[in-house]
């Protein structure tokens, strides 16, 4: 549309937007990790890294294979999973109950907040010796350690989640004469769900840490016990195989939680 006379003096407006936008580049990660493992493998094979300190990826895979064939792998995994699932579920259930009470009633809140603030910062593994005295060296003390570690963050996530439920929605429920339990189930619980699920992510990783620590202190089977004994025998390939197992376990739990979130929070 520019007139002929103007044409010579026209310039394009320079573009200054762009950048600071993240786009999906799926292949990049695959290439990076494949490259990293290849470099690692080559470094060990060429002799520039001692296999005692850092065994090659192929040796780690080999160690895993041997473990699977011998059957020891399943024993370690099932013992660990039992402690993890049992401890996490126990701590989560108790934490949800306490968190709901603190989110809804004033007196539990008044008592609970100082209690939780005082006990939450204690690294729960420090309580394991005490718990061993109480429950013995067996499963109960390990499960209790994990449950304790999970309990406090779940409590905090739950009552903060309830604090975040818009009050106008609760007033709306009251204005329709909804009974207390209907408001709790249909307004408070779903409203607190994003906070509770964010708490699950934190407690899952806490549970994993406490699991390994507890197993290193006193267990015959379990991934933590296995890693410790491999270290003591300088079997670094086995040690790393155990670490890989933990990493896979963490990934599986994380993926499961993501699915749960996508399903429960599909309204967001």
């Amino acid at each position, binding site marked *: 549309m520019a007139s002929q006379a103007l044409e010579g003096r026209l310039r394009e407006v320079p573009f200054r937007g762009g950048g600071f936008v993240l786009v999906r580049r799926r292949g990049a990660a695959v290439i990076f990790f494949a490259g990293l493992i290849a470099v690692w493998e080559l470094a060990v094979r060429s002799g520039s890294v001692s296999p005692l300190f850092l065994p090659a990826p192929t040796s780690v895979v080999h160690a895993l294979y041997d473990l699977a064939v011998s059957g020891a792998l399943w024993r370690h995994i099932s013992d660990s999973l039992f402690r993890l699932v049992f401890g996490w579920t126990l701590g989560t259930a108790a934490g949800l109950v306490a968190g709901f009470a603190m989110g809804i009633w004033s007196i539990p809140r008044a008592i609970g907040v100082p209690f939780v603030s005082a006990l939450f910062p204690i690294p729960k593994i420090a309580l394991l010796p005490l718990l061993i005295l109480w429950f013995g060296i067996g499963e109960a003390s390990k499960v209790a350690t994990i449950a304790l570690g999970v309990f406090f963050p779940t409590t905090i996530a739950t009552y903060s989640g309830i604090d975040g439920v818009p009050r*106008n929605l609760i007033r709306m429920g009251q204005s329709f004469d909804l009974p207390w339990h209907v408001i709790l189930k249909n307004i408070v619980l779903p409203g607190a769900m994003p906070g509770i699920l964010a708490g699950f992510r934190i407690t899952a990783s806490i549970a994993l840490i406490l699991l390994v620590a507890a197993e290193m202190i006193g267990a015959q089977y379990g991934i933590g016990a296995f890693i410790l004994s491999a270290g003591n025998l300088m079997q670094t390939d086995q040690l790393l195989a155990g670490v890989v197992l933990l990493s896979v376990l963490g990934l599986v739990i994380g993926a499961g939680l993501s699915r749960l979130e996508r399903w429960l929070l599909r309204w967001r």
Partner: protein
Amino acid sequence: MELLVEGVSHRYGDIAALENINLMVREGEILALIGPSGCGKSTLLGIVGGILKPTSGRVLVSGEPPTGSLNPFTYVFQDFALLPWRTVEGNVALPLEHHGLPESERRARIADVLARTGLTEFRNAFPKQLSGGMRQRVGIARALVVRPAMLLMDEPLSALDAQTRELLMEDFLALWLKERITVVYVTHNLDEALRLADRVAILSRRPGRLRDVVTVGVAQAERTQPAAQMRLAALHDQLWRLIKAEAQVAEREVIEDGIAGT
């Protein structure tokens, strides 16, 4: 149902929000409640519907709610107050859930109000997928599903843009003309009040006192016709004069409050 507000005053701590309100709401009318920001309109509406206890005074009702009314005093909220995790249908179903209605009646009630508010094809949408106007339709459908005796609407259109407001107002009026449900309608907006209300109650700035109650005297169905325009324009002027001075003072007051509060 008729409703009588008798000598109602309300204080929030040191703040006097309402002072000696005496007001009657008649069966089948739309009573608009208008007044400057912060004068206690929402407070009065809360007291009328029984979700706020007045410091003094009382609210009386006469007559029985219509049969099948599950929640005689039902609110429509300015911010819609929809549950974001429920679909349109789920939101509308919420106030029915604890009543244990037969499944067929429950479905019939929901289908009926969705049709009347033009939401049938959106019944599976979540609130975040809807425009503001559609969200308030859900708020209205949810209120109608309990067959209220009295609708208490707190600035139901003020979160919407001007065009949406106009459209929704006309649709609401069409709905109302069929049922003539009793409505208390809080608004800032004089045009809204003059389009919808049978009577307009004007509150002074805080503490809210009843300044005047003005009868519009033109049937809602005739208000868009040329013959009514003179009367409506005159009313508009009269009401605006009443409100203007109050609003000017109230505006300054709010700002001073803000400074004092910090």
